[in-house]
């Protein structure tokens, strides 16, 4: 037999809980209404439509160890570093496609950043008009997933260098980082510690380690 005072207490607590629940529900609804009223859904900035521009991709082919120039029309950002990243992202999207001539997983997300740095000591030109070093920061996932082999790694590195130079002629040298750190090789073969000459899509003689 439940004592009478416990029954009364239970009923009081139950009623209090129901009242508190309804109060909270009302408060939540009011807050939601306030948010909706405060939100301005009218567009305040016109969308920017970037003109499509010509981009050149140097697409590698494993079958004959070659690179083929491929021209595309792409909307590209004006910022040179963002432009370099966009072009390389498109190149790596080609490599991630199922029918790629140089199959490499990863796609555009493989390029974490591209930094463009004026090359100090370049003769005869002001620093802002002179040649630039591109530092391509690849993601660790891309390097980890890259097929291992002399030919495939070399083609990836050289096609990145050649594509950068084709679209940003001031880029004459290219260095690579993986997750922001220097790394010995891409996937066990191609040397990532040296500076590559983008003009020749090959490493610089006497390249610094």
């Amino acid at each position, binding site marked *: 037999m439940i004592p009478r005072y416990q029954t009364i207490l239970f009923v009081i607590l139950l009623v209090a809980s129901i009242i508190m629940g309804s109060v909270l529900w009302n408060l939540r609804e009011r807050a939601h209404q306030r948010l909706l009223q405060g939100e301005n859904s009218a567009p305040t900035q016109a969308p920017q439509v970037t003109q499509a521009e010509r981009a050149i991709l140097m697409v590698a082919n494993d079958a004959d160890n070659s690179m083929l120039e491929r021209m595309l029309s792409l909307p590209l950002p004006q910022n040179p570093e963002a432009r370099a990243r966009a072009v390389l992202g498109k190149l790596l999207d080609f490599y991630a496609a199922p029918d790629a001539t140089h*199959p490499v997983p990863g796609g555009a997300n493989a390029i974490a950043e591209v930094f463009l740095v004026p090359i100090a000591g370049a003769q005869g030109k002001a620093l802002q008009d002179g040649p630039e070093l591109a530092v391509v920061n690849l993601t660790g996932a891309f390097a980890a997933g890259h*097929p291992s*082999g002399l*030919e495939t790694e070399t083609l990836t*590195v050289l096609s990145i260098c050649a594509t950068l130079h084709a679209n940003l002629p001031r880029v004459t040298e290219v260095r690579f980082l993986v997750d922001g750190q220097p790394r010995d090789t891409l996937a066990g073969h*191609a040397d990532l510690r040296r500076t590559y000459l983008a003009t020749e899509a090959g490493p610089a003689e006497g390249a610094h*380690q």
Partner: protein
Amino acid sequence: MVVLDAAHGGSDDGARLSNGQQEKAQTLALSVRLRSLLAARGMAVVTTRESDIAVDADRRAEIANRANAQACLSLHASETGSGVHLFVSSLAPVQGARVLAWNTAQAAWVQRSLSLAGAMNSALGHAGVAVTVGRTALPAIDSMACPAVAVEVAPERASKAPGDGQGADGVDDPDYQARVAEALAAALVEWRQEAAGARHP
């Protein structure tokens, strides 16, 4: 004297081939086979490794440079592409260098390396093996002071993607391996005659 450098080894497995083999085992097998063929033709051979041990790039170049070799081959295997890929250092050629920097010693030998790659291309083509020739940056051969070529053996099939059907024409196919090794040995014997009087760049 020929230096055979079986790439990778120890904890460095190299590429994983589609038959489950590791590149380090495949390169060692090719090195052993090639050493036997060359020894049978009266050529002295130095190898950078005879077992599954780790050898770093500097040590490989040290062994090659001490051997004063007529030819140095860095042996690799891969699942991408097809046939045999021959690579010569992409360092710009330097003529008449008196002092060679360690990291770019190969620059003085690039022309001879290209000639060696040409001889190997010809021999492999004669054996019916598809060949591509290119330039690459590979620390081990960039420090070698000898005519040096990196040889990468890929499946004989015309493949488009790594892992495409591996069968009797894969990297581990005995007949294919034998043809590649025979062709490389023939090229090196021919090269010995040619290089006898031209040891220095």
